């Protein structure tokens, strides 16, 4: 019997492609964000609000993942930015090779901000690096305030948690302060924003967060391309 130490990542092929993508994004100055949530938490609605609100100097693009249908891409294309639908045909998450394939034909020099809307799922997408600069998790007030404790992995790995559907707060039993405390218990340094995509509350703060994140990223990009 021989024992051979391996010390390798299980998802090393995914991680290899993700590292290549991250390098490409940095070279071209494309800030890539990976949006993750349960189905129906408002990822597409937040992107609709975002594409509607960002001013002219932001060149955005979206890759939107779903198991079936082109519905989300159709909703997002109305704003004039490049949008591609990734239909996984059953897979519950996006992986780095899907991103690589769907970027073909796009000029990253013409994209400042690339949103990846992951398949609605709080578990599986957290294991797959897509080469993004940051993960953003969404939690709607119609879900439980203990969700960060039930699904710690994604809250731990996300830089920002967006609590959505805040216009429904008067109608649901959801303790938003407790939800935020739970997110911070799992990930003490996490940024948190409250938004209502329907009413537009908090969208200005979300855009300001994107702006701040883009400025940070550009200083990294400047160093990388010197």
């Amino acid at each position, binding site marked *: 019997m021989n024992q051979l130490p391996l010390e390798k990542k299980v998802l090393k092929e995914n991680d290899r492609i993700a590292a290549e993508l991250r390098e490409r994004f940095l070279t071209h100055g494309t800030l890539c964000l990976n949006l993750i949530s349960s189905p129906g938490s408002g990822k597409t609605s937040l992107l609709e609000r975002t594409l509607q609100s960002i001013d002219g100097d932001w060149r955005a693009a979206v890759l939107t993942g779903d198991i079936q249908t082109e519905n989300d891409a159709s909703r997002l294309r109305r704003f004039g930015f490049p949008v591609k639908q990734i239909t996984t045909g059953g897979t519950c998450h996006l992986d780095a090779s899907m991103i690589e394939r769907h970027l073909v034909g796009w000029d990253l020099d013409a994209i400042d901000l690339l949103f990846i809307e992951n398949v609605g799922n709080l578990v599986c997408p957290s*294991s797959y690096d897509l080469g993004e600069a940051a993960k953003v998790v969404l939690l709607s007030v119609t879900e439980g305030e203990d969700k960060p404790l039930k*699904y710690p992995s994604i809250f731990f*790995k996300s830089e920002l948690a967006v609590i959505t559907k805040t216009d429904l707060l008067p109608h649901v039993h959801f303790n938003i302060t407790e939800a935020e405390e739970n997110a911070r218990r799992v990930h003490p340094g996490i940024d948190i924003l409250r938004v209502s995509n329907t009413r537009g509350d908090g969208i200005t703060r979300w855009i300001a967060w994107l702006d701040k994140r883009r400025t940070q990223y550009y200083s990294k990009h400047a160093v990388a391309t010197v």
Partner: protein
Amino acid sequence: MHELGIANSIFEATLCEAGLHRCMRPTQVTVRIGELTAVDPGALQFCFNALTRDTEFAKLKLKIEVCPRKHRCSACGTEFIVNGYDFRCRRCGEEKTDFVSGDQLELASLEMEQYESVTA
């Protein structure tokens, strides 16, 4: 249910590694799964067995080591296992502690046995 994809990655990596050694057959692969990876050990074991069944590697075993979340104290440097969501230092009570490990998804080692090659 991404455990099937992960089990497949483990199986492929095992075959790839074993293929580098002549006249050796893999008997057990050991993986480390951090508690923050959102991978269910039971589902992973089930998927791995389903993949290897009815193949020449049906006897290949998967050993899963579950790794807890560990933090290091920023004041006294003590490394400790986090229980629940209490991140305070076990030794000095300092609130500010940093994540060390707990998100591993790694192939740790491979056990192999020798066999006689019929073509050799």
